[in-house]
């Protein structure tokens, strides 16, 4: 190339020489003066110089440009390197050999710069990506704390370190986000469980907190506010749950108490088993769906289970109300009704318990202080002065005390029973011993003998029984420092009295024995003097035996005598029977027999004498209803009969008619029995509204008469 340019220069010099030569020729021809010629040449020389100077300036400028470019590149390179945290490329030191020209230098630095620029761009993209993610997550986490400035990539520091830092930050953010998600899921499941227990709509609640929570597809909101709200909701539901649970448990325990009080059968209890089983559960243990829902609690109030469930409902409503806003009026009425029911039930309970108490007392022969009985308590409950539960409790306490006391008395009481039984036998023995025909062979005599044998053995044991009893009682009294009473009487005094009576009897018996002996001696003496005589103690005639035995056996046998007399001797003396009859007539028979009797007797007593039943009637007491004078009644009846136009056959002129008619009147007055046929009274009587019983035939006759 140099050669080429040399050639060109040579050509140029040739061209210049030729041009100068041409010029000299022209000048010669023109005849320019030498001065002119010199001036022209100077001009030419000056112009050339100018051109040269311009070129040099240009070159110089170009060199400066180059240098500038190199410096710029180097500076940029250095900047990039530094921003990317890489060691600077020392082009000048490394590759700055003196032999290098500026252009070479520039050429060598340019690719480096390009390279670095490319890397920087890549780095920038990385940074912005990370930053973008960070921004997104930050937005999610702190919805309101978004500062856009913080998320513009700072180009001055694009070092790996910074990137890593950012990545770490991103990671931490991601972790936080996942943590929060986890927390939210936890919260959601807790909430779900609570909702299901309480029977609340879970979806609705979470939708209220944040709509995204309900959406299975969309990402869930993880911002702090949501979490906070979730936590609040959980707290609120848990509070409700605990509150309800406590109510339920209060309830269940009340129910158990009531069951216990009212001896509710197991089948009825079974219905509430799911309630009752929660009585001891802690809050965490109640997880079954709807256990505490309003519906469930209403379910608890099953109508068939009577008071218990009604009470349950009452309690429920009391606290469900604020939640459910049920119709308050209805509930109030219901609660009122329940309260009344409860009062009634309580009254019954108290009465029952009272009875139990009295029964216990009776069995233990204890006099339970009456304290005016259940009536006072009940009236007090009704007036609201005393709490029914309190009364029940008191009675319960009393029962417990009485039971305890009864238990302590049991041993002694058993002995007392034995003693009393023995005393009874003793009394019987006395009766028996008084019966002088006791050894007569008769019906059942062997049984009586056997009984006597047993009784004798028992009676012999009495002193022993009494002694032990006294010892026991004394010990008992000493232990308790109170007197042992038997049906309100001090037992010891009873025993003492008994002992005194026994002693007296003993003395009496001895006296009798002595007397008998004396009598025997007298008889013997008399026999010796006058020969034998019937003994005064000889058994009386057979006829009297029965009556004697009756006496010994007491009133029960005496009551049977009329009947047995009839059975054995239908034809026995009538007068005796009559008196007996009077004694044994049932009140009903007395009342009925008297109707119209004096009349009958007056009118045709002769005809009746053969009939004993009628004959005895005059002895029956005369009731006031029967004191109607004979004549007026007669005329009255006659009038009535005439008015009713009864067929003549019915008015048959027997003396009996007035009497029976009088009886009829009596019936009309006392009982609405049908009186006479085809009479209005009959219709009135048989079809009436009163509760008198009528047979089909009576009704039919009434209809028959009415139809005619």
């Amino acid at each position: 190339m140099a050669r080429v340019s040399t050639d060109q220069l040579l050509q140029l010099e040739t061209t210049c020489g030729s041009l100068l030569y041409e010029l000299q020729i022209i000048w010669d021809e023109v005849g320019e003066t030498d001065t002119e010629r010199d001036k022209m040449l100077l001009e030419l020389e000056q112009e050339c110089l100018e051109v040269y100077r311009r070129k040099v300036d240009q070159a110089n400028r170009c060199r400066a440009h180059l240098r500038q470019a190199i410096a710029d590149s180097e500076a940029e390179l250095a900047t990039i390197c530094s921003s990317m945290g890489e060691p600077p490329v020392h082009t000048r030191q490394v590759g700055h050999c003196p032999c290098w020209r500026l252009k070479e230098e520039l050429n060598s630095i340019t690719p480096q710069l390009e390279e670095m620029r490319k890397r920087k761009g890549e780095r920038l993209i990385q940074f912005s990506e990370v930053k973008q993610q960070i921004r997104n997550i930050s937005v999610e986490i702190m919805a309101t704390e978004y500062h856009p400035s913080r998320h513009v990539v700072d180009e001055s520091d694009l070092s790996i370190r910074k990137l890593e830092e950012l990545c770490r930050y991103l990671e931490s953010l991601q972790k936080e986000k996942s943590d929060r998600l986890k927390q939210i899921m936890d919260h959601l499941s807790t909430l779900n469980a609570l909702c299901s227990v309480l029977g609340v709509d879970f979806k609705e609640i979470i939708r209220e907190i944040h709509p995204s929570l309900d959406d299975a597809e969309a990402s869930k909101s993880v911002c702090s506010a949501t979490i906070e709200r979730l936590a609040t909701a959980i707290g609120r539901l848990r509070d409700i749950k605990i509150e309800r649970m406590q109510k339920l448990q209060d309830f269940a325990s009340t129910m158990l108490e009531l069951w216990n009080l009212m001896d509710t059968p197991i089948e009825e209890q079974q219905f509430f088993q799911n309630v009752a089983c929660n009585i001891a559960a802690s809050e965490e243990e109640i997880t079954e769906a709807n256990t505490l829902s309003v519906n469930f609690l209403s379910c608890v109030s099953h109508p068939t289970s009577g008071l218990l469930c009604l009470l349950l409902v009452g309690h429920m409503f009391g606290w469900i109300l604020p939640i459910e806003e049920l119709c308050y009026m209805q509930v109030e009425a219901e609660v009122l009704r329940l309260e009344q029911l409860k009062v009634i039930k309580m009254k019954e309970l108290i009465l029952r318990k009272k009875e139990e108490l009295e029964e216990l007392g009776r069995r233990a022969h204890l006099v339970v202080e009456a304290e005016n009985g259940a009536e006072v308590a009940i009236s007090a409950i009704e007036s609201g002065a005393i709490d029914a539960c309190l009364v029940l409790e008191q009675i319960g306490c009393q029962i417990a005390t009485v039971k305890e006391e009864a238990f302590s008395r049991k041993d002694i009481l058993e002995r007392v029973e034995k003693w009393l039984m023995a005393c009874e036998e003793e009394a019987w023995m006395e009766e028996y011993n008084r019966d002088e025909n006791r050894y007569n062979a008769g019906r059942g005599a062997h049984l009586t003998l056997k009984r006597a044998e047993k009784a004798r053995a028992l009676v012999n044991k009495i002193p022993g029984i009494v002694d032990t009893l006294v010892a026991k009682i004394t010990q008992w009294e000493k232990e308790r420092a109170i007197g042992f009473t038997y049906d309100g009487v001090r037992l010891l005094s009873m025993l003492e009295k008994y002992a005194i009576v026994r002693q007296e009897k003993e003395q009496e018996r001895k006296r009798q024995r002595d007397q008998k002996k004396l009598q025997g001696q007298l008889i013997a003496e008399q026999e010796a003097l006058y020969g034998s005589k019937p003994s005064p103690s000889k058994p009386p005639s057979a006829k009297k035996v029965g009556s004697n035995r009756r006496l010994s056996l007491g009133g029960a046998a005496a009551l049977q005598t009329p009947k047995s007399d009839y059975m054995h001797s239908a034809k026995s003396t009538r007068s005796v029977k009559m008196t007996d009859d009077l004694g044994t007539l049932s009140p009903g028979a007395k009342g009925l027999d008297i109707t119209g009797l004096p009349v009958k007797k007056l009118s045709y007593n002769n005809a009746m004498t053969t009939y004993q039943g009628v004959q005895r009637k005059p002895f029956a007491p005369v009731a006031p209803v029967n004191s109607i004078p004979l004549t007026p009644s007669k005329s009255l009846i006659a009038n009535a009969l005439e008015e009713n136009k009864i067929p003549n056959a019915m008015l048959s002129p027997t003396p009996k008619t007035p009497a029976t008619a009088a009886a009829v009147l009596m019936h009309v007055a006392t009982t609405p029995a049908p009186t006479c046929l085809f009479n209005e009274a009959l219709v009135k009587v048989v079809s009436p509204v009163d509760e008198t019983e009528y047979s089909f035939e009576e009704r039919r006759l009434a209809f028959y008469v009415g139809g005619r």
Partner: protein
Amino acid sequence: MSRPSLPFRFSSVPPPDPQTASSRLAPVDMSTATMLSGGRELSQPPSDGISNLRFSSHSDLLLVSSWDRTIRLYDVGENTLKAEFVHAGPVLDCCFHDDSSGFSAGADHSVRRHIFGSGKEDILGHHDAPVRCVEYSYAAGQVITGSWDKTLKCWDPRGANSSDRALIGTYVQPERVYSLSLVGYRLVVATAGRHVNVYDLRNMSQPEQRRESSLKYQTRCVRCYPNGTGRVAMEFFDLSEAAQAKKYAFKCHRKSEAGRDTVYPVNAMAFHPIYGTFATGGCDGYVNYSKYPTSIAALSFNRDGRLLAVASSYTFEEGEIPHEPDAIFVRNVNEVEVKPKPKALPGPPP
């Protein structure tokens, strides 16, 4: 003093039940025809409700009293009406004296005697209210009548037509007399108010026993067990609950329909003269599982128990309603039907 106890069989009248009225009035089913093949229906039946019917104890004559104011005598063998007497009012009961005469109890308060051959009738006497039942005691030779005037009267039939001579005695009862039954000298009286009195005819001054039905419903009918040994069985209308049904588990005349029990009154019962078994008839129209057109008002076995007269006649249990015509069926009794089964002895244990 031990006396054989009287086993009671209680039953009573149910209150009229309008809900079941239609079912009772259902038309006669086919079983009627098949049942009737073993018997016949008497011609010339009474024109109104039959109050009672009785076979003679000497022949196959049948005496029937009716609400149509008649008392009729049929010869069952010839299926003829042999005699008819008309009263002033409905006749509530009748019984034979012997084959030539009988007695009737009238709603006109009268007690009458009828001589079948001559058509003659005497009045034994009167009660103060309609006479519900009449019985003749062969042992005592007396006619016993029970009336709604709450008395029992004994009559001597030889003193007929002059009541002062016929009346032997009047015995006041606690309530209106609804049913009587006799065996030997023993007389059982059932009255309203569920009273039951047992008398000995030889000593009528007071009841031998006074009892009360343990059931809550009215006593409709009482019958003595005819072995004459002093043992008496009593039949009441059985409307009893399951427990009682177990205790007195014979014909209950009940029907289970749509989950509810309809229990019909038992109006009548008759003892078989030889086997001692008995037939009962109720408002359901059944006699021991055979269906009749309407309620069974009365039953009677003839003297050898080969014939059973059944009065199929509405008994007014539901008041005045349309009902089947009154009819008398005489049924040939199959021996198998009436022989006691070893498990279900009708009589009380000795």
